[in-house]
């Protein structure tokens, strides 16, 4: 076991735990945001750099601080380690920089994006981003691609988290999509026109932190905050059958995996459950899903409602200037 102090809060965790997981076990503000790390995907994390934290004390044995900020998702805790997340100016400044980088080429098309309301990048920008954009250059764009009849890839919105590639590698056989080209020309693609066609491909949609991979059976049907998530299950011979089904009125508009408070699915589900079971009679409904993180969905529906921060007058001035 290792004792770690994160932003002044002590927690004891198993050896081999990452700083991010240790912080999640505390929860709340001290948890760094993570856009590419995904607990259930081996080797994920380290790419987006949003979870950078300052290690002000390496360990009890070697108390020297780490010279650079470290990605908390890929750095193991040591006994006696002291980590600064929200209490580190350096980490917050770096994070602001990372958010800016992630948005330099992002289309900011939230008004027409299906992910709006449950988008990690939206939350991240709201919590850690700046007020205005300093880049005046044309944004990078790509053509939309259908990768199969159920999934659409809109690369323009992608932040290259590699999660969908890892899903294809780890829970399906025969990956047909990947990252092609390099640098800022890198893109998720099948390269040739090709369908990602296997029983678990739909999980790419669930792991995508932005609106780059969307469910074609749900596209443009409704804004997510007009739908009500309910926990449901069915007998399925391919997966656990445990899902969240999203209602609008009495209609099931979409089916997703069950996500925890970090927006990660508890279990991957199969495409039959996701795409083909859209009747209420397909499901045994367990009850409403508690929505705590993406507050816009829970607005006016569930508990834990938090009033969004309001702009103060001087902030508005800054926007104008």
């Amino acid at each position, binding site marked *: 076991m290792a004792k770690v102090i994160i932003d002044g809060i002590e927690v004891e965790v198993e050896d081999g735990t990452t700083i991010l997981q240790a912080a999640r076990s505390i929860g709340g503000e001290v948890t760094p945001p993570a856009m590419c790390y995904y607990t259930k995907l081996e080797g994920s994390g380290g790419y987006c750099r949003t979870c950078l934290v300052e290690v002000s004390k390496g360990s009890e044995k070697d108390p020297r601080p780490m010279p650079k900020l470290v990605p908390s998702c890929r750095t193991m805790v040591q006994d006696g380690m002291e980590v600064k997340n929200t209490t580190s100016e350096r980490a917050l400044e770096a994070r602001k920089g990372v958010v800016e980088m992630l948005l330099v080429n992002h289309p900011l098309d939230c008004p027409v994006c299906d992910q709006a309301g449950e988008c990690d990048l939206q939350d991240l920008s709201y919590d850690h981003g700046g007020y205005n954009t300093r880049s005046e250059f044309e944004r990078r764009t790509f053509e939309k691609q259908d990768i199969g009849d159920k999934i659409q890839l809109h690369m323009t919105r992608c932040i290259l988290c590699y999660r969908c590639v890892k899903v294809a590698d780890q829970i399906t056989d025969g990956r047909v999509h990947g990252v092609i080209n390099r640098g*800022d020309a890198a893109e998720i693609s099948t390269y040739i026109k090709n369908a990602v066609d296997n029983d678990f491909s739909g999980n790419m949609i669930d792991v995508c932190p932005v609106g780059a991979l969307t469910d074609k059976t749900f596209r443009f049907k409704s804004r997510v905050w007009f739908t009500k998530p309910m926990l449901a299950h069915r007998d399925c011979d391919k997966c656990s059958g445990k899902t969240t089904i999203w209602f609008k009125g009495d209609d099931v508009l979409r089916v997703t995996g069950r996500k925890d408070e970090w927006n990660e699915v508890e279990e991957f589900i199969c495409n039959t459950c996701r795409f083909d079971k859209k009747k209420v009679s397909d499901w045994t409904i367990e009850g409403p899903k508690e929505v705590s993180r993406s507050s816009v969905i829970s607005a006016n529906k569930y508990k834990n409602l938090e009033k969004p921060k309001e702009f103060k007058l001087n902030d508005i001035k800054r926007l104008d200037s």
Partner: protein
Amino acid sequence: MGKKILLEHAEVPGIQGYEVYREKGGYRSVEKALKTMSAEQVVEEVKTSGVRGRGGAGFPAGMKWSFLAKPEGVPRYLVCNADESEPGTFKDRYLMSKIPHLLIEGMITASYALGANTSYIYIRGEYYYLIGILEKAIEEAYANGWLGKNILGTDFSHDLYVHPGAGAYICGEETALLESLEGKRGNPRMKPPFPAVKGLYDCPTVVNNVETIAAVVPIINDGGEAYANIGIGRSTGTKLISASGHIKKPGVYEVEMGLPVEEFIYSDEYCGGILNDKKLKAVVAGGSSVPILPADLILTTANGEPRLMSYESLSDGGFQTGTMLGSGGFIVMDETTNIAKNLYNFTRFYHHESCGQCSPCREGTAWMEKILHKVLAGKGSMEDIDLLWDIQTKIDGNTICPLGEAASWPVASAIRHFRQDFEELVKNPAGLDETRYYYHCNNINPEVA
């Protein structure tokens, strides 16, 4: 005349071939190591020599070797980094084309020390013609019993192969190099684990630069002590310097560490002074990644001491007034050079070479190039210079691999020391012509079928 221990015989006719190389004392280090020394003794000798990684990082090679994990029943690898791509650096190419057996000999001796039975030379694809030269040398080494099974009748067997890259600066980063050697994209790995524990094919691996491995030969022949006596302080031995730019005699020079920079630039033995006898304006002393310094600071430190060719002296003053020895890529610029224009050139390079894995580097390098392109097109503003400064601070230290720093430091140093060059372009946009600058996002443009 400085002491030459790597290139001593480089100009001897026929030294490319085995016979002449052997006549000049070639392969003695293998004989000495295999017949009279234990592997540990070879490692100790390299530690004693104090030789530091010649690829740019300057990490003590003997120390790196001693970190190599040695679990039972798991193969260990030595990989030579011949992916020389740092702008301004061409010493490894020179060494490999002139005296290829020196590298082969170093690889065998080093592999013996590390207990590696297979080693690879990863060479950049653009040096394809050198592969023929190296493979011929390897063939000769096999034919004469220096490679293969039970070398010199000992238990030590060794196979050596050459592996080509295909055009990617990032593969000079050791973990990207290993990915590339495994047939993947050259994406640097997250560290830890370091290659010494989990490297090529997840096995313990040492990656060393060509020049570092070549230096093993004189270190074993003459002893680590003798090597350590060359040079100055913790900068032991000699260094191959690739000199280019506005000088009379560009080329590769082997210098003893501690040579004054002024002598290196102006002496006829080395660069021979500035081309057309113009005035010196700036020097990039260790390849494009290291901070650029103005003439006064490259010739003398901020304390007024003569600047020397050594790790310590070049970095004296930190990034405020110093730079780094880096890979020894020494680019000289005369008084006519606009440093902002040169910086555009560097930022374009880093943008082109970013692997695209992590966001600060992927987006930041592109952004910096775009801003400088705009300034060079005569459309820049003073705010652009400050923005450029701010962007580099957001990349520096926040990326997976050192390419982020390599892209940031030139920007920081150019603005720090040559802000007036940027302002001049902003204030006098007349005559700037953007068509001169071949802006391209990436020359990789796939056809989607």
